C-alpha cells in the first residue's frame, strides 16, 4: 500500500469516527464499543463504560498491607461514595490514583487506554483527575482570584506562565465559578483569611477550574456548617453526570443526600457495595463499624 493510500484510509476512518459522535445517552457515551477506533493519546476512552479501573492493587508500608487486592471501577458521570473505618485505605487509594504512591502490584487505568501507573502527579492532573485533600490545601498567600487563576486549565510550562494573560473567555469562567462556590464577594481576599468551609469550597473550585473528568474528594464537608454542607450536596448533584466523582466521607447524612452506590472499604479491600440502605443492613459492615 502506498503512503497516500494509507493516509486516505486514515482520513476516511477519522471521518467515520466523527459521524458517530457521542449522544451521551448510554453509559458508554452513546458509542458502540468496536475495533479499530482511533485512540487519541491523552484522551480518555470511556467506550467500555468505565472511567476508572483498579484491579488487584496491593500496597504495603513496612509489611503493613494498606491496600490488599483492591478492585474497584467507576462509570462516567457516576457519583460514588466511599466509606470505611479509619485505616481502611481510603486516602492511600487516592494517593495511588493520583500518582503519589506507587502500588506494589495491580493495574490502575483511566478510561480503557491510559495506564495511570506510567504517569506522575502533574501529568495525571493534566489528564483530567482532580483531587481535594482531607485538609483543605489552598495557596494561603494568594488571593481567591489568583488561586483559581493558577488552577485554570491551560499550558502549565514555565515559558507559558511567564507570558500568560487571562483572556475574556477564561475570566468569564472564573467569574461563573466564583458564583458556583459562593465566593464572589471575596475575590480579592487572601485565601489564608477564609473560614475553614470557604477554604474547602475554594479548593473544590480550584478542581473545577481544571475541568477534570474525574474528581476525587477526600472529606469535602469536614468542618462545614449544616448550611454549607447542604449547599455542597447541591453542588455535587449538579456536577454528577458531567463529571465522575469519588467522595470519601464520614458524614452519613451527607452521603444519604448524594449517594447512589456506596462502596465500603475495610483493611484495604472492598467489603461491600450497594445502596446506602443495603450496605447499612450488611452484617459484615455492621461488624467492622461497631466492633465485635
Amino acid at each position, binding site marked *: 500500500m502506498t503512503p497516500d493510500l494509507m493516509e486516505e484510509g486514515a482520513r476516511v476512518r477519522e471521518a467515520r469516527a466523527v459521524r458517530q459522535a457521542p449522544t451521551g445517552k448510554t453509559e458508554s457515551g452513546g458509542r458502540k464499543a468496536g475495533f479499530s477506533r482511533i485512540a487519541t493519546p491523552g484522551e480518555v476512552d470511556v467506550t467500555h463504560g468505565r472511567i476508572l479501573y483498579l484491579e488487584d492493587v496491593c500496597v504495603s508500608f513496612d509489611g503493613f498491607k494498606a491496600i490488599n487486592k483492591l478492585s474497584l471501577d467507576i462509570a462516567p458521570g457516576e457519583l460514588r461514595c466511599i466509606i470505611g473505618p479509619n485505616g481502611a485505605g481510603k486516602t492511600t487509594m487516592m494517593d495511588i490514583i*493520583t500518582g*503519589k504512591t506507587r502500588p506494589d502490584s495491580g493495574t490502575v487505568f483511566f478510561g480503557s487506554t491510559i495506564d495511570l501507573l506510567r504517569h*506522575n*502527579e*502533574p501529568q495525571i*492532573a*493534566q489528564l483530567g483527575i*482532580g*483531587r481535594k*485533600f482531607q485538609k483543605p*490545601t*489552598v*495557596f*494561603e*498567600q*494568594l*488571593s481567591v*482570584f*489568583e488561586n483559581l*487563576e*493558577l*488552577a485554570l*486549565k491551560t499550558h*502549565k*510550562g*514555565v515559558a507559558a*506562565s*511567564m*507570558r*500568560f*494573560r*487571562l483572556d475574556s473567555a477564561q*475570566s*468569564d469562567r*472564573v*467569574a*461563573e465559578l*466564583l*458564583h458556583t462556590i459562593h465566593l*464572589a464577594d471575596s*475575590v*480579592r481576599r487572601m485565601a489564608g483569611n477564609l473560614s475553614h468551609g470557604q477554604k474547602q469550597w475554594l*479548593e473544590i473550585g*480550584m478542581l473545577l477550574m*481544571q475541568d477534570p473528568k474525574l474528581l476525587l474528594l477526600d472529606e469535602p464537608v469536614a468542618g462545614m456548617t449544616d448550611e454549607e454542607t447542604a449547599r455542597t450536596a447541591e453542588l455535587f448533584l449538579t456536577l454528577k453526570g458531567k463529571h465522575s466523582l469519588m467522595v470519601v466521607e464520614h458524614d452519613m447524612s451527607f452521603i444519604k443526600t448524594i449517594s447512589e452506590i456506596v462502596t465500603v472499604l475495610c483493611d484495604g479491600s472492598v467489603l461491600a457495595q450497594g445502596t446506602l440502605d443495603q450496605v447499612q443492613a450488611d452484617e459484615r459492615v455492621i461488624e467492622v463499624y461497631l466492633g465485635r
Partner: protein
Amino acid sequence: MNENKISLPTPAPLLSRAGWSAFIVALIVVCAVAPVLNMVVPQGSVFHMSDYAVALVGKIMCYAICALAMDLIWGYTGILSLGHGLFFALGGYVMGMYLMRQIGRDGNYKSDLPDFMVFLDWKTLPWHWTFSDSFIATLILIVAVPGVVAFVFGYFAFRSRIKGVYFSIITQAMTFAAMLLFFRNETGFGGNNGFTDFKRILGLPIATPSMRMTLFVLTGLTLLGCFLFARWLVRSKFGRVLQAIRDAETRVMFSGYSPLPYKLTIWTISAIMCGVAGALYVPQVGIINPGEMSPANSIEIAIWAAVGGRATLIGPIIGAFIVNGAKSWLTVAAPEFWLYFLGALFIGVTLFLPNGVVGLVKKLKGGAK
C-alpha cells in the same frame, strides 16, 4: 447570567505611579547626582561625595543584587539557599581571571603568566584560562559559569525532591567544598591569596576616579535592571506559581504543574544574578579570594534579605544597605562587637520583625490609618 458582574482584579502594572517616580529618582541619583557630587563638587564642600563613599556604596549595591537574588529563591519560592556566596564568587573569579590577564608583563616577575603561576613554576596557562584574554568571552562566562553550576546542582537536588533544611545544608556544603577546592594551589585560581593587584580593565587603568565612577554607575544600573526584571518575574503568573510552590507544593502538582522546571528556572536566574554581582564587585574592591565562598558569607546574604523583608523585592535591597552600612560603621567604631551585633540583629528580626523592615513600615502605616 447577569449576576456574573463581578469586577475581577486586573493585572497589576509593572510599577505603580509612585514606584516609577522612585525608580526614576534612583536612576538619576546613580547616573547623574553621584558622579557630579563625587567629581565636580570640590573636595572641601559638605556636598562632596568622597571616594571612600563611592567605593562603599558601589560595594553595597553589589550585595543588594545578591540580596535580591536571594529574595527570588527564598522569599518567593521558599527555598533557603545557604550557598549563594559560591555563585557570587564564581562570577568574581571569572572577572578576576580576565583582570589578571590584563596585568600583562607589569607583574612582579615581569612574565606573561600571572605572578602566582610563575611562583608555582608553571610554564603555560592551564586549560581553564583559555578564554581569560577575551573580554567578550569573560562576559559570557560570568553568566554561563554560575548558571551551569546552579542548573546541574539544582537539577539533581530538585529532582530528588530535596527540600527545606536538607536543601539548605547541601548548599552550605557545596560552597564549603568549593572553598576548599579553590584554596588549593593546584586548582589554578591563586590559592588562598586569590587574585589581586589588578592594573587595567579593557586596557584602561583600573584605579582612577573616573573608572571607579564608571563601575559605580554600571553597578547601579545593573541593580535597577535586576529589580525591574525581578518585578516582572514575580508579577507574572510564573511568580505566582513560585509563591504557590512555597505555600503548598503538593497542590501545585495536583493542579498540573511540574514544580521541577519552575524551581530550576528561578534557582538558575538567582545564581546568575549573584554571579553578575560578583563580577561587578571584584574590579571595585580589587581582590577576590576563596574567603568569599566561606559559609558565613552565604548566611549573611540570607540575613540581608530577612532584615529587609522577604517577598517584597525592595526589602532585601534596603536590608543589604542597612546591614552593610552598620557593618562598615561598626567595624570601625567597635570592631570587636560587630559579630555580636549581627547575631543580635538576626535574632531580633526573627523574633520581632518576621516581615523585616518593610513589614514594619507597612504595619506602622496600617496602624496610622
